[in-house]
């Protein structure tokens, strides 16, 4: 059983001794590879997470996020590479390593016939908790996920958002050293989504390490201390938000929408020195531009001169979306 005491001790350690780099990571994954048939779904991914850190795995659908997580949680045996949780090697039969993690699967993993409380009790017992400590903790988690007044209801009667929250509650019941959340906000209404994001923030405030996968860059920006950008099974870059943005050369994003000869306009704006990259959609051009405020007049002239009829022009400070575009030449959004 993971104990909170241990976690807190490690955190105290982390705060006191981080400068020396002596903190033991909660998770070390090295060179993970996993294929399905001829598809290399995960192709050499490594990551480390320190106590109390919220780590983001950002990538579009099919990037390999769930496959990475399944190997980390010991559900899936890697073809190559190793996973160590709290210093213990993880595998399909690693009882001790599994005790240190709490997994919140992407798809709901709750028993519809059981009440919210019974679901929590059941998984709590499998985590090795029992008796009064279990009962108290279940009550605490029910309140935490806002299901205190619906505890006795069968979970099949819950709304989508409530089921999601119960799903998350089960993962953090035993106060794991590492909580793994796989796209917890997909298909959730905006209110529940915000509640989920707030509770993740609260958890990391309490010192739990969190591994958070998402394809929403705003969530990664808001929650995560460090982010790994994953595409086609490969790590594209890793760092803090600011470090990642530096990769783009701190370029701004310029979004030109309109009609007319976009191909010619693409060629024309690409010739401007301040323009670092151009990506063309049927009705828009997305550019990364160094010093957009000064270059914007040039860009607009070039585009209209080449035959594009502009309907809208936007300048945005760089964000993770631009990093992804910069690294992969693709848009992150679906």
């Amino acid at each position: 059983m993971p104990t909170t005491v241990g976690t807190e001790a490690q955190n105290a350690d982390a705060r006191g001794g981080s400068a020396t780099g002596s903190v033991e990571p909660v998770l070390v994954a090295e060179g993970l590879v996993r294929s399905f048939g001829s598809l290399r779904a995960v192709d050499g991914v490594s990551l480390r997470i320190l106590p109390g850190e919220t780590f983001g795995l950002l990538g579009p659908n099919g990037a390999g996020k769930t496959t990475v997580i399944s190997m980390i949680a010991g559900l899936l045996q890697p073809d190559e590479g190793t996973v160590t949780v709290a210093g213990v090697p993880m595998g399909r039969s690693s009882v001790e390593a599994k005790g240190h993690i709490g997994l919140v699967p992407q798809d709901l993993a709750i028993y519809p016939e059981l009440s919210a409380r019974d679901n929590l009790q059941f998984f709590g017992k499998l985590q090795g908790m029992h008796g009064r400590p279990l009962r108290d903790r279940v009550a605490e988690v029910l309140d935490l996920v806002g299901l205190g007044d619906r505890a006795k209801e069968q979970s099949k009667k819950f709304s989508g958002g409530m089921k999601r929250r119960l799903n998350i509650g089960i993962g953090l019941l035993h106060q794991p050293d590492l909580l793994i959340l796989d796209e917890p906000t997909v298909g959730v209404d905006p209110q529940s989504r915000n509640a989920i994001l707030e509770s993740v923030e609260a958890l990391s405030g309490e010192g739990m390490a969190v591994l958070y996968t998402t394809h929403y860059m705003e969530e990664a920006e808001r929650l995560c201390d460090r982010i790994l950008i994953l595409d086609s099974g490969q790590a594209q870059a890793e760092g803090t938000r600011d470090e990642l943005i530096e990769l783009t050369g701190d370029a701004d994003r310029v979004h030109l929408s309109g009609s007319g000869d976009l191909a010619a306009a693409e060629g024309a704006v690409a010739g401007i020195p301040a323009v670092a990259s151009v990506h063309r959609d049927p009705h828009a051009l997305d550019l990364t531009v160094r010093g957009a405020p000064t270059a914007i007049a040039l860009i607009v002239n070039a585009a209209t001169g080449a035959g594009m009829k502009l309907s809208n022009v936007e300048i945005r400070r760089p964000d993770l979306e631009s990093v992804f575009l910069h690294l992969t030449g693709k848009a992150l959004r679906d």
Partner: protein
Amino acid sequence: MGRVLTMVLSDLKQRVRDFSVLVFAVLVPLALMFVMNLVLSGVADEGLQPITVAVSVPDGDELAAVVPHVLGEASLGELRVTVRDADPEEVRGFVDDGTAGLGVVVPADFTAALTSGTGPEVEIIRGDDSGIAGSVVTAIVDGTLAQLTAGTRAAVAAQGLGVPPEQLGALAQAVATEAPQVTWTEGRTASEQLGMGESIVAGQSGMFLLFTVGFGVLALVTERGQGTLGRLLSMPMKPELIVLAKGIVSFVLGILATTVLLVAGATFFEDVDFGSPVAVAALVVLVVAATTSIMFVIAKVARTAEQAGIAQAIVAVSLGMSGGAFFPVANTGWVGQLLSVNPVKAFTNGLGITAGGGGVGDLGPTALTMAVFTVACLALARVLPERKDVL
């Protein structure tokens, strides 16, 4: 062991809650036992009036022809049934003017509806004074349709699983030609030592046992779809414990249901006595273990809960019906081969031995059959390749 117990208790709680176990494991087989017993033992008090049944069947429809065929053979004990062929539009007139006590109209699309899985609508028209004989004949028609539907569903399902058509033909044939003799042809049961009532109780218990044990192990497949299996695998315990827990759930459900059915059968029906309780208990344990082991194979090969249900139905219907508990089946074709080692058949044979006064010591070959079957299935389940890495 605490974790296994936690999983077993939680599963049992859920199974009891969703009622399907109660229905399939206990209520349906009990109801069928009663219907059959009613049909067979005659109705002592009131006596049965002879009855004429007007039946309309589409030309050249072999499956539909089963219905008049069954009714033609249904004169048993006090029951006297005369079948009168009729055109569809004549049937109601015959019933109205008293020429027939009961009318049955099998629709033109009967076989097509059966094989497409939609379920044909057979019309049954009862005359005002058809009496108990009318009820009995209606039950026979219903029972036959249930058998045909189950059998044909099994055949259709087999198509989805890639069983060759000629094997399907054999299964459909088995249903079409043998099912009619199902319940009311005295003295033709497989195990000579069992009386008719005992045979029904044993046969129904054996056949529905396959449904019952499915609720335990096949929950693995449901949980795979539901996502909870992934979560179970992330818990701090050996993955084998999850499989063990499901096996125990199957075993417990199987023992409970079979015990209830055998005891109920012995209590409600006259002349049903299976002999030494210890020997019967040994047989129950063995047959439940054997049928549970089949489920591990199905859990390994089925991708979805639907597939598991289909595979389970095929096995249940073919082992149950062809196990010789209901009617004799020639041991030819794939059905015959499949059934040469059949735990349900071994079970009814074993009960024949105990009913004839045999004790535990007399069960040698029967017990061995079931034990070998269990070991073979468990070994098969072990060597079959894993699906999607989840168990």
